[in-house]
């Protein structure tokens, strides 16, 4: 069951290819990407400029003015305050602020659009892929796991390439410009702040990785919790009827306890994160105050008050971009496995597909021929080996035999749900892999063992294979399926998966659904096991009509259903042990005779 396990990714090697690959999905929207990267840069730069305005305000307006005022006071005169200069700086502040606001507007607009479009595209691609993957893929993939790929996994990955990228780009640009400004005004203070950056970055990535590790554990446990809730709600009838409530609760408590511990550990490191980063930032700020102060009291003064204040400001705020960069890193790491799941689905090879030169099949006559067909699900256990069978157009064939002998496999091969691993299967004399899938399946009517319905009305379900069917045709199909009594219920909602109907009712609807397509080849895999005796009798009446004028294959346990078939094949261990009509086989007194007469013995048993 290895395919069901959540793979653990070791970060270093996988991160870059992963980022590159999702980037190609975002790069489809080149214009938006340019826009949002450009403007996020502008926003980061304006953010770095704000402390400089304060610096200018202090050094070029307040300080000179203050000195002038004090000088005037000493001389006993007054100095008129220069409001124009003050206004100029406030004005510049507002202008920079407005530019930033425009940038924010634009980057939200485009980053959001990139995110939504990447999600849309990924989901679309995956959904299309899923429609084309063959049964063998679904045999080994749980549908719940596939669903997450199209939902939460997609969300996470799209977030990395939009808001995640935004965080990273903002962080880097902001740091670069803060440092540039600092270096320009004071090399020494710039160096102090610069040294704090890698320390902060390393510390914050380290802590974030610890958080990530424990949140991974807790996420895993969380899905177990969900599974547990789901199972114990779905299976509540079993739990109650066996009186196992206490035992179930004990099991759950163990799980929720594990969850608490894992979440707490993640919470512990999260609690550590901001204090650590802030502390490092504060250390840098303390050094700025100390060295800046030293410079200010040196003779001659090496620094102005404005530069000191601005440096302090930068030092106190530099943790913000650092947090954003580390956030991006953690986010990307955290969505690695989501990305891996998505891309492995997109990379999955479609095993049953139209060949390049495949032609559309015309109206099928219904001549089916197995030539030396071999088939296995697992190489060690071949189901069919050198299997040969010829079904003539218009014949009705019954397959009889115990479970697991290969009946369903034969049918699955004809439907091309699987393809022979060796040998050829011909329809109307032509290898069916040379025709298109659609032209083949659209001429087949298949009633599967488990009757799956879609939510919607009963009518919607019946016309599923032929949307344009008229009311009259629906009525006819119902009649053939022995379900005329559904006519009045056609607008009834059947519920999710048809849950509002009983198993027997579902079988009838799925039967009618197949009948309605007027198929050239009709296939029924044990499709009436759950209907009651009266309905069964009604189906018997209708079935003759279905068999007329088309090739049909039927698997049924109740032999009465198949007695009238042209040929009955008894299948055992992937081979045909008996072949003939009912009479032939009865005379042969072989396996079929046994099966058939056993029914009598049972009937007799009742009477004993």
């Amino acid at each position, binding site marked *: 069951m290895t395919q069901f396990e959540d793979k653990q990714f070791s970060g270093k090697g996988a991160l870059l290819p992963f980022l590159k690959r999702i980037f190609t999905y975002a790069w489809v929207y080149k214009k938006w990407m340019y826009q949002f990267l450009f403007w996020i840069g502008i926003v980061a730069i304006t953010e770095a400029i704000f402390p400089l305005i304060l610096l200018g305000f202090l050094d070029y307006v307040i300080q000179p003015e203050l000195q002038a005022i004090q000088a005037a006071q000493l001389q006993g005169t007054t100095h008129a305050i220069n409001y124009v200069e003050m206004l100029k700086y406030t004005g510049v*502040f507002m202008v920079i602020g407005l530019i930033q606001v425009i940038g924010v507007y634009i980057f939200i607009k485009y980053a959001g659009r990139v995110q939504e479009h990447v999600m849309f595209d990924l989901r679309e691609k995956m959904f299309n892929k899923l*429609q084309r993957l063959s049964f063998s893929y679904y045999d080994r993939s749980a549908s719940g796991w596939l669903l997450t790929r199209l939902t939460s996994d997609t969300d996470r990955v799209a977030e990395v390439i939009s808001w995640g990228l935004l965080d990273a780009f903002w962080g880097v640009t902001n740091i670069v410009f803060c440092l540039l400004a600092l270096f320009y005004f004071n090399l020494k203070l710039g160096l102090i702040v610069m040294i704090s950056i890698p320390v902060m970055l390393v510390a914050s990535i380290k802590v974030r990785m610890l958080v990530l590790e424990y949140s991974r554990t807790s996420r895993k446990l969380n899905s177990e919790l969900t599974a547990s809730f789901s199972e114990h709600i779905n299976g509540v*009838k079993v739990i109650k009827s066996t009186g196992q409530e206490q035992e179930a609760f004990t099991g759950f408590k163990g799980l929720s306890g594990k969850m608490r511990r894992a979440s707490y550990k993640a919470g512990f490191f999260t609690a550590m994160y901001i*204090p650590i980063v802030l502390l490092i930032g504060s250390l840098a*700020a303390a050094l700025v105050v100390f060295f800046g102060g030293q410079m200010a009291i040196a003779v001659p003064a090496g620094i102005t008050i404005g530069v000191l*204040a601005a440096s302090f400001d930068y030092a106190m705020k530099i943790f913000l971009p650092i947090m954003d960069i580390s956030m991006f890193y953690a986010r990307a790491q955290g969505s690695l496995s989501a990305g891996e799941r998505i891309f492995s689905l997109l990379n999955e090879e479609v095993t049953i597909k139209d060949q390049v030169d495949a032609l559309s099949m015309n109206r099928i006559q219904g001549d089916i021929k197995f030539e030396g067909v071999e088939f296995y699900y697992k190489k060690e256990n071949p189901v069919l080996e050198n299997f040969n069978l010829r079904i003539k157009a218009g014949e009705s064939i019954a397959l009889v035999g115990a479970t697991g002998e290969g009946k369903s496999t034969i049918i699955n091969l004809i439907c091309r749900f699987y393809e022979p691993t060796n040998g050829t299967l011909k329809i109307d004399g032509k290898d069916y892999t040379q025709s298109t899938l659609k032209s083949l399946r659209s001429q087949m009517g298949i009633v599967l063992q488990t009757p799956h319905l879609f939510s919607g009305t009963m009518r919607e379900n019946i016309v599923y294979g032929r949307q344009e069917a008229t009311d009259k045709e629906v009525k006819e199909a119902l009649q053939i399926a022995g379900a005329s009594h559904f006519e009045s219920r056609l607008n009834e909602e059947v519920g999710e998966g048809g849950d509002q109907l*009983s*198993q027997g009712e579902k079988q009838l609807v799925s039967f009618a659904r197949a009948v309605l397509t007027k198929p050239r080849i009709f296939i029924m895999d044990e499709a009436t096991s759950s209907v009651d*005796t009266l309905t069964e009798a009604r189906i018997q009446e209708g079935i003759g009509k279905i068999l007329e004028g088309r090739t049909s294959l039927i698997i049924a*346990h109740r032999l009465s259903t198949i007695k009238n078939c042209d040929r009955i094949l008894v299948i055992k261990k992937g081979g045909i042990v008996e072949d003939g009509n009912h009479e032939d086989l009865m005379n042969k007194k072989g396996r079929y005779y046994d099966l058939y007469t056993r029914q009598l013995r049972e009937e007799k048993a009742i009477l004993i």
Partner: protein
Amino acid sequence: MQHIYKLFAVLDRWKGHYIFAGLLLIIAGVVRMFLPKILQVAIDGVVVFHQSNGTHIPNTDSDIISSFIYGLLPNIQMDNLSWVLTCIGLLFVGIALIQATVRFFANVISASSTENAIKALRDRLFSHIQALPLSFFGEVPTGEMIQRCTGDVDTVRNFISSQVTEIIRLISFFFGAFFMMYLIHPLYAFIAICLSPLVFITTFVFFKKESKIWEAHETEQDKLTGIIQENLSGIRVVQAFANEDYEIEKFNKQNLVKRGMGIQHVDLHMKFWPFSDVIIHAQIALSLFVGGYFTLSQQITVGEFIAFSTYLVMVAWPMRQLGQIFSKMGMASVALDRIDLILKAEEEDYEGYHSEDEKLKGDIVFDEVSFRYEEKGPLVLDKVSFKINAGEKIALLGPAGSGKSSIIALLARFYEPESGTILLDGKPLKTYDKTYLRKRVGIVHQDPFLFSTNINENMAYAAGEIEDDTIQEAAKIAAIHDFVMTLPNQYQTQVGEKGVSLSGGQKQRVALTRALLQNPDILVLDDATSAVDTETEFHIQNGLNQVMANKTSIIIAHRLTSFQGADTIIVFEEGKVLEMGSQESLLEKGGFYRKIFDLQSAVEEDIRKEINE
């Protein structure tokens, strides 16, 4: 306010811890307020003092915080400035350290109490759900119920883990920073927050809108998920009917709607954030100008002005965050309401007569029993009376919806009858302890449910400690042993979503084994072998006859072959007993049973003829 109270109630026994964490955060917030103040002292007390050649002596008593800080520092003179600066640096580091440590502990305490409280909530939900009557499960769709226990609990968890402490932090920040500004210059302080209410109001309005759009977004997202889910579970049908394009079209439509909704959501943010930023920028620009004026008119010092500009930012952003928190609080309380709906539903009353070692004899009497599932729903059973003697084998027959399964539901006390009495071993059924009763009555349901674990554990589910041999014996009776042995890991093979998927008949047989291992005094098979082929069913019957000899068993089935050897057959129609009696008497009577019998024995007639030929 009621919301807050309710959310607070979730904290349960850990309320005290929370309050303690909150207090620590307030302390951390207050301590944080000192940092800009220290810069102010450094500038006014050292730099300006030095620049003015010691003429400009700092006012060490301008406010309590400043005087506190000056008090910690050595006396400031022209010749010890370097030493003063060192002290300032150390003080700064000390305060930052205290702040970080206090904050760390506050976070840890809140994290641990959150996880404790949430575990308690989860446990409560789970055990409560297990004790709810079956009727409740019909009312609430399964998916929704799971969503409430998981997604909604997560929403509440996220809120109390991060937002509760965040609220305290922001409020203490806002008032702390305002207080510091007030100390510097009261009028200036008020000017500095004059636009804040505007930010608060727009944020609040925005998040009201946001939650609406978000809800719509979630609805569309759910629809999309629904479409994918349904497609995946029906993928075989989709492919069988070559309907892939139809499905893709359906999906694309909804995918597009979801994207549109997502972009609407983005657009709301696109308008809001710049808008609130403009107000904040205007606020800061205004304060800058006013601050410049106050500095130049010498009402505040340069150092105070610089400290002030730091506080300015501290005051502005809590306003912006609070609206967001309120909206999250809204979401959390909606989630909590949904959880409450489950918690408020009444539990089953299990208490009643039970005995450790006493077995049930299996005498069952239904006397004029009427029953309906919903109070105003249709009558499902209408004055049904019958008697089953201990050790008898009873068959229930009748079309779908005739009331057969309801008999079973009443017998296991999943529901109580509307009128009439049911007696078990002569005692009223309702006096029995439910757990005891259900452990003694083994039921195999129509749609077998298996847990996603291995086959062994599924079989032993209700058996407690049990030997492997015993399991295999029961599996042999249920005619599933041979099949299990062909599986890769045999009895250890995983079943369900993450394992091997069994066919309907195989599941039924595993469920039958489970019921057998429960070692019940009364065995009930509710159409439990419908998907098993006749030959296998025949084997099962033989085995059951041995195990259940002298024990009461009740069988519901459609095929007459499933009824072999029944002592009494009860035929139901529309909630009433239509016919009752032994096979012979019913055949003679020529009613419903006769009709079914004739249909099925037509086959037999044919066979007989053919054999005789």
